[in-house]
């Protein structure tokens, strides 16, 4: 790697906490954030979700927004998480900073609420453009006055992981010295019903990698990392480095993963290559682990193909639910917390291994030496991304 990519700040807002400290506390105490819908208006009151228990007006008040603001819920969550990341990295000047946001459903929460009302209610029309991810990114960038290179990646559940990868590449190429990367997604009836209609939505809490897993549970979250070139990070605390990344396509099916996890395998292989590491260097894997039958089996097979000896691994989606486009970002934060505190966060609700692959995740908080963490994120359209985070030496 030509130029190293330092992580100098991070911020997070998820169902297990409104900032880094709260998220960390929940992780070490095994306190998950799944519950039944209270904010999301849906008929599916029986489906557990990783919901943040703040209303949009609570969130808007916390940001001192004007009453007629056009912030989507994803923008509200994102702005709060980004604020923490920037404070954490001690960045106050945004003139040359870039912003790569991962987002999948954009302002679908607003679209589904107002779709049948736009005609009759002019007051809501400010949300017409909000349907698409770029609008949410615009709102967040506008709040901070980030004006130059701003883009959105939308590759479903790997969006934020791809944003981290792009940020690292922008710094390595010398195109940018500072870039904020991550993602945000809110719960919506659209996605809840979508996954439910695919018959992969669990009525119980998620059981990643368990033989009795019943499917995924959605969550909402936002998380961002501040990436800086070595020169810019010189006098700062470095939380870790983005040392490897890889993206590949499964080219198998629009939504299902291939049996042997080819896309996942290729993504992990590329990540190891760019990091110049061998599989045995990886100390912990934050797996994609959605708890669907298909993903966990396919990912397990891909992991076995890469790792002769399986490192410690877990899926923290058992804490947060599957936060779609934000998943890669919150799991990047958890990976960096794992590096900072030299500890592995457990995979909740696991009882028995999948008979075919026999992989057993870490089920209790574990203190151990961690130098390199691999984080997986896979999405619709066969999109597979793996990231490697490494400790500052």
């Amino acid at each position, binding site marked *: 790697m030509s130029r190293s990519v330092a992580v100098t700040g991070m911020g997070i807002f998820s169902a297990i906490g409104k900032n880094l400290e709260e998220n960390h506390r929940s992780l070490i105490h095994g306190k998950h954030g799944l519950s039944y819908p209270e904010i999301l208006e849906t008929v599916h009151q029986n489906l557990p979700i990783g919901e943040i228990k703040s209303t949009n007006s609570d969130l808007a008040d916390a940001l001192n927004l004007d009453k007629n603001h056009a912030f989507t819920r994803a923008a509200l969550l994102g702005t709060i998480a980004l604020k923490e990341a920037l404070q954490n990295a001690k960045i106050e000047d945004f003139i040359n900073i870039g912003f790569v946001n991962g987002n999948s459903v954009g302002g679908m929460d607003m679209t589904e609420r107002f779709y049948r009302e736009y005609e009759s209610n002019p007051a809501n029309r400010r949300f017409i453009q909000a349907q698409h*991810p770029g*609008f949410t990114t615009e709102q967040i960038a506008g709040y901070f006055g*980030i004006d130059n*290179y701003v883009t959105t990646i939308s*590759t479903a559940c790997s969006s934020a992981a791809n944003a981290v990868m792009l940020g690292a590449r922008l710094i390595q190429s010398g195109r940018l010295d500072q870039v904020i990367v991550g993602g945000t997604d809110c719960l919506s009836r659209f996605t809840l019903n*979508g996954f439910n209609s695919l018959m992969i939505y669990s009525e119980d809490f998620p059981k990643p990698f368990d033989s009795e897993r019943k499917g995924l549970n959605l969550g909402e979250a936002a998380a961002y990392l501040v990436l800086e070139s070595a020169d810019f990070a010189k006098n700062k605390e470095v939380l870790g480095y983005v040392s490897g990344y890889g993206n590949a396509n499964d*080219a198998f099916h629009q939504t299902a993963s291939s049996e042997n996890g080819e896309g996942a395998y*290729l993504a992990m292989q590329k990540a190891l290559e760019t990091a110049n590491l061998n599989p045995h260097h990886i100390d912990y894997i934050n797996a994609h682990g959605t708890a669907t039958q298909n993903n966990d089996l396919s990912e397990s097979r891909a992991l076995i193909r890469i790792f002769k000896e399986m490192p410690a691994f877990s899926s923290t989606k058992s804490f947060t639910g599957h936060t779609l486009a934000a998943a890669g970002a919150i799991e990047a934060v958890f990976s960096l917390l794992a590096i900072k505190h030299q500890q592995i966060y457990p995979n909740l609700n696991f009882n028995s291994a999948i008979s075919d692959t026999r992989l057993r995740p870490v089920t209790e908080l574990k203190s151990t030496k961690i130098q390199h963490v691999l984080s997986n994120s896979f999405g*619709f359209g066969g999109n597979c991304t793996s990231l490697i985070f490494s400790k500052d030496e």
Partner: protein
Amino acid sequence: MYINGMASIAAQTEEDLFAENLQSFSENIFPATSVNYKEYIKPMMLRRMSKTIKMGLVTAKRALNEAGVDVPDSIIVGTGEGCKQDTEKFLENILDENESFLTPTAFIQSTHNTVGGQIALDLKCTGYNMTYTQNSASFESALIDAKLQFTEEMGTRCVLVGGVDEIARISTPFYNLDGQLKAGEINTAKILQSSSEGTITSEGAAFFLLSEIRTQDSFAEISDCMIYRNISEEKLQEEISWFLKKNDLKIDELDVVILGNNGDTRYDHYYQQLQEDLFKNTLQLGYKNWVGDYNTVTAYACWLGAEILKRKEIPQQLKLNNLPLKQPTSILVYNQYLGKNHSLTLLRSL
């Protein structure tokens, strides 16, 4: 980055463009011309595909064909609004059936990266696959990624890059309600002279097979691309000068500028100021009065620029000023939408 193949679908055909036979429309929303999709996609598959998937897949395949490439190393797509038709379909089912009895087909095709995924699936391409959705800078975000790929030592030789957006039955007409589209009687051919707010919209796709090195199939080059979320008119002039300089071009050496004027009196001043000042001695072309404005219409503008460089011919109906025609060797595309997501893209002949 060398262009070895490209294809485009828009509201006008390539023949009409160069035969000075461009069509005018009387609606503010008009569709892309129909294409014989069956030539490229199996009928079974075709039935399930929304327009954006069809347009994306067909232009991608035609670009690959022209370049003689079976499978590219990477696939990078820009789409501002993704699969609006399938999104609309699934959303209406949710609302009509009160979240019950839903079938997932429309949902699984509703994600913004469906086109990229479907191209990968069709080509069995396991390489890098990315989708950008930054409003009017979506296609340019994809171009910037392609450019990065060629500077990295990842063995990338050719990248398929494109932009695609579709019209949807309900969601596109929403733009009549929030002031994005022009009200009243429309003659699209004349909108650049209009004195009203709003614009006209359509749909389309354009894909390019870009190669790191020049080959016998190369016919033009996309040299550079920049995006700005928000920029003042003064700063824009400075940035354009800097951008050209960075690419070893003086302003009077630039042959053609393709501008994104869309007839919206609130924002066309970004272009008009450049037309009267920086580009007053440059041949200026406008195209949105013929193909509409949509998030990835700049993919069409780049296709147009590359086609001009290839044919060494200017479509007369696009001229915004009357300067003597030079042999075009360098073309700048500048665009913004609603005053945001500005982009500069430089094309050159070989």
